[in-house]
Structure formats: structure tokens, C-alpha cells
């Protein structure tokens, strides 16, 4: 069964450094998402992406964050200058159709980001 994959599984970085988290969504999916989960807390929406542009973003997704689909398969989240509070598990998700919330979002296994 197709699945969303993410790399790396764990990323450790120094405060102020740039990180890029990578995701390969399921191949026929058209909508892509990033969520994050701070340890012990709920999953929080960061951004949705469709047709090569951001369709919606949360307050968390400030100028330090950017997303890109550099080719037909990868979907990346970049944090320009990491802060301690960016430490979290970052999940990528994708779904097949656009227009409403009727379709399942499939989550990747996550990247644990630790900022020291």
C-alpha cells in the first residue's frame, strides 16, 4: 500500500541553523500538508499546499518557514533560523482530491526535530 515517507527521521540542529525536512507524498495525491506536534501536545496545522502554492497557513507558519515542491515527488519544509521552540515532531500529510474535507489525509512517520 502506498505511503507517505519522510526524511530524516530525526534531525538535531543548533539554534539559528537552517533545516530542511523532506517528504514524499503518495504519488497521485494533490494536496499536501505540514503539521507539527510538540512533545505531549496535540497535532497542529502549519500549512497546506496545492497546485504549487500555499493555500492556507497558520499563525505558527511565519516568515521563518517556507515550503516547496522542487520536483514532481518531493515536498519540503524549510525553517530558516531555528529556535528552541521549533523542537517538535513534524508530520507531512497528503490527500488525493481537492475541494472540501471529505478525503482522508495520510500522515507520514514524522521527523523529530531537536534544536539545541
Amino acid at each position, binding site marked *: 500500500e502506498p505511503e507517505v515517507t519522510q526524511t530524516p527521521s530525526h534531525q538535531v540542529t543548533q539554534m539559528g541553523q537552517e533545516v530542511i525536512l523532506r517528504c514524499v507524498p503518495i504519488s497521485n495525491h494533490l*494536496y499536501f*500538508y505540514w*503539521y507539527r506536534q510538540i512533545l505531549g*501536545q*496535540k*497535532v*497542529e*496545522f502549519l500549512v*497546506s499546499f*496545492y497546485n504549487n502554492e500555499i*493555500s*492556507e497557513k497558520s499563525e505558527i507558519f511565519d516568515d521563518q518557514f517556507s515550503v516547496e515542491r522542487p520536483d514532481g515527488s518531493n515536498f519540503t519544509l524549510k525553517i530558516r533560523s531555528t529556535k528552541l521552540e521549533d523542537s517538535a515532531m513534524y*508530520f507531512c500529510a497528503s*490527500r488525493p482530491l*481537492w475541494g*472540501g*474535507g*471529505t*478525503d*482522508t*489525509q*495520510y*500522515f*507520514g*512517520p*514524522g521527523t523529530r526535530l531537536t534544536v539545541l
Partner: protein
Amino acid sequence: QQPVQSPQAVILREGEDAVINCSSSKALYSVHWYRQKHGEAPVFLMILLKGGEQKGHEKISASFNEKKQQSSLYLTASQLSYSGTYFCGANAGGTSYGKLTFGQGTILTVHP
């Protein structure tokens, strides 16, 4: 605003049943239920759509009360594998592009 889940935690013995509720103050288009085990990604369980359609699992069922904007997840004859944190994700439809706003989670522990 995030949906509110209740209870916050449930402890069961194998074979017992549980109900987890998810309430929203906003009108919802769909509710998505996920289970997450420690250190793992959320796994899809069920979607409930406005109008009553649902798609999901065998031993897990759910309901969606549009008047109350509340969804309930029913876990019957629980197994050890049901342990985990259950999240409901609310979608408001319209121009929300499928964004899910998650509740705070319900921790379910099943003992032998």
C-alpha cells in the same frame, strides 16, 4: 478554535467498550478520527461527513450529530492494540482546503 475531546483519559480492561466525544463550537463539514501510538504517526480510523456518511474501520464506529456539532467514537470489545491517543480532526469545509484542526487527544489504555 480547536475541538474539545472528552474524556481526557480512559482505562479499560480487554473486552470493555469506550466512547470518546469530540465537540466543536463551529459548524463542521467533516470529522476525522486518528489513533496515535507513542512516537508514531497518527493513523486514520474514520471520517464522518456532514449528512451522515461515514467511512472507516470494522470494530470502530462513530456518529456525527450535526445539531450539536459533536462526534462520538465507539470502540467495542477493546483489544490491547487499541491503546493509544485518539485525536479528532475537524474540517470546516468551504475554503479551508482540507485543513484539520485537532482536539487535545484522549489517552486510551487497555489492560489485559
